[in-house]
């Protein structure tokens, strides 16, 4: 893993190792908030933002505190703590300084705390022993990949609303089926770059 260029990891995180389509992480908000393109993009931006900063923060904590003291097994708890605290902090900052974004994101912001794609990226970053720049590339890429997936899904679902559908498929079931089909399509990218 050491010699892969951060930019390659960035591109791979968007297409070939997409958080949703290849890892199936962050599904809850992916299914719940993919009804309208506009809100999907809003949540996507918020996830990308939080994901990038918490992963970098977790990188610093892991390699500078946990690893030297031999406390790697505590990383789950510590990562969750930093994510929760960071989201709180971001909420306060946005409310004060970027009011429009704060109101646009609404309740999505606190929801991000429990988005497992965010914890997932922090853990993968450790398991794959990325260096700092690779971590940055990976986290930004994962965020954009997640945003791409939810936006695409919102686009599909908003068109789906116009069609008659069997009752049993309305809502989450059809969303999961579409996710599967989209994941198949994304496999087509896998020849491009490979990081796993």
């Amino acid at each position, binding site marked *: 893993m050491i010699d892969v260029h951060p930019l390659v990891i960035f591109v791979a995180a968007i297409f070939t190792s997409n958080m949703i389509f290849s890892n199936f992480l962050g599904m809850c908000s992916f299914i719940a908030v993919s009804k309208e393109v506009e809100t999907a993009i809003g949540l996507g931006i918020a996830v990308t933002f939080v994901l990038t900063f918490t992963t970098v923060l977790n990188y610093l*904590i892991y390699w500078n*505190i*946990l690893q030297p*003291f031999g*406390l790697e097994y*505590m990383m789950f*708890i*510590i990562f969750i*703590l*930093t994510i929760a*605290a960071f989201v*709180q*902090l971001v909420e*306060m*900052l946005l*409310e*004060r300084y970027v*009011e*429009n974004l704060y*109101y646009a994101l*609404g309740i999505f912001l606190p929801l991000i705390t429990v988005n497992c794609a965010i914890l997932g990226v922090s853990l993968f970053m450790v398991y794959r022993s990325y260096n700092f720049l690779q971590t940055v590339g990976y986290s930004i890429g994962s965020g954009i990949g997640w945003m791409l997936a939810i936006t695409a899904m919102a686009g599909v679902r908003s068109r789906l609303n116009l069609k008659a559908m069997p009752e049993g498929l309305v809502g989450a079931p059809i969303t999961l089926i579409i996710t599967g089909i989209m994941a198949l399509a994304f496999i087509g990218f896998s020849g491009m770059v490979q990081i796993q």
Partner: protein
Amino acid sequence: MQEILFTALVVTAIASALAAVLTLADRTVGNYGQVQMTINNDKQFTVEGGKTLLSTLIGQKVFIPSACGGKGSCGYCKVKVHDGGGPVLATEKPMLTEEELANDVRISCQIKVKQDIQIEIPEELFNVKEYDTTVERVEQLTKTIKLLRFNLGEETISFKPGQYVQLKAPAYEGNDEEVYRAYSVASSVNDPNHLELLIGYTGGIATTYVHQHLKEGDEVNINGPYGDFHYQEDDGGPIIMAAAGTGMAPILSILQYMADHEIQREAIFFFGARTMEDLFLSEKMKEFEEKLNFRYVPALSREESAEWTGIKGRVPVAIDQFIKDGAPYSAYLCGSPQMIDSIRESLKEHGVPEEKIYYDEF
């Protein structure tokens, strides 16, 4: 052993560092400092920023009607925010009409005071205060209706005959919610140390509290007065009053006011009930009949007994019988929306001018 302690120490240290950052952020970023709140362009308040508009106003002893306690579910606490309210929130939109949105109306329990803010509220809300009262007397008027007399102690309340107050029902056994409910004042405006309310048992949170838990000597929190249903001095013609059940309360206050000021306008009061058992305060009505140019006409819709020689049927039946030409009258109605609708129809048919029909729905 050492390892466990060490681990705990490191985790605690990291958690404390995060907590410290958050506390610091709360003190600096979350601290909006002092902001200026201007009400109706003339009253200035310097308030601590960061709280909701409703609680900031209550902190300044300005009371806005609110039934749900700031949860954003009742939509009563509307105020006009001309400047500094920020964008309209998703939690407000379901409770505001297009017209209200165009007129700067906001739900005050949902928006935060973060900068200098300019708001507009009805002038009479400045008169609204909070009172710690004690229950002086409880009187069972009918099977389901109680009259409660509250003592305001040293404090006085100034209201117009016909207005209402809000009573706070605290949490009690079987109910963990604190609610405010509105009741019209039945007592005289000339007795500013006391309030009398008629409260009927419906099985709801507040009426259950009043009927099953409240005793003489208990302390009750009341705020008010509110409402634009009240006696109008300016039109001097004859008056029609109509009410059912606890709707008699504001009418009582109006009659008391007329008696206190010896207002000899012709007045007739149609009181709707089911049977003779539902009638109350008949003695009091007799007193008013003696003192005033006043007539009390109960109309019973379900009374079968031969003892009853009065009106049989609903209030509109009585109106048909007593009102020939409605044009000179003004009318005061208090009751359920259905009852008020039917009486308004009937009054309009008799020629009572629509703009002189005042009513209070509950």
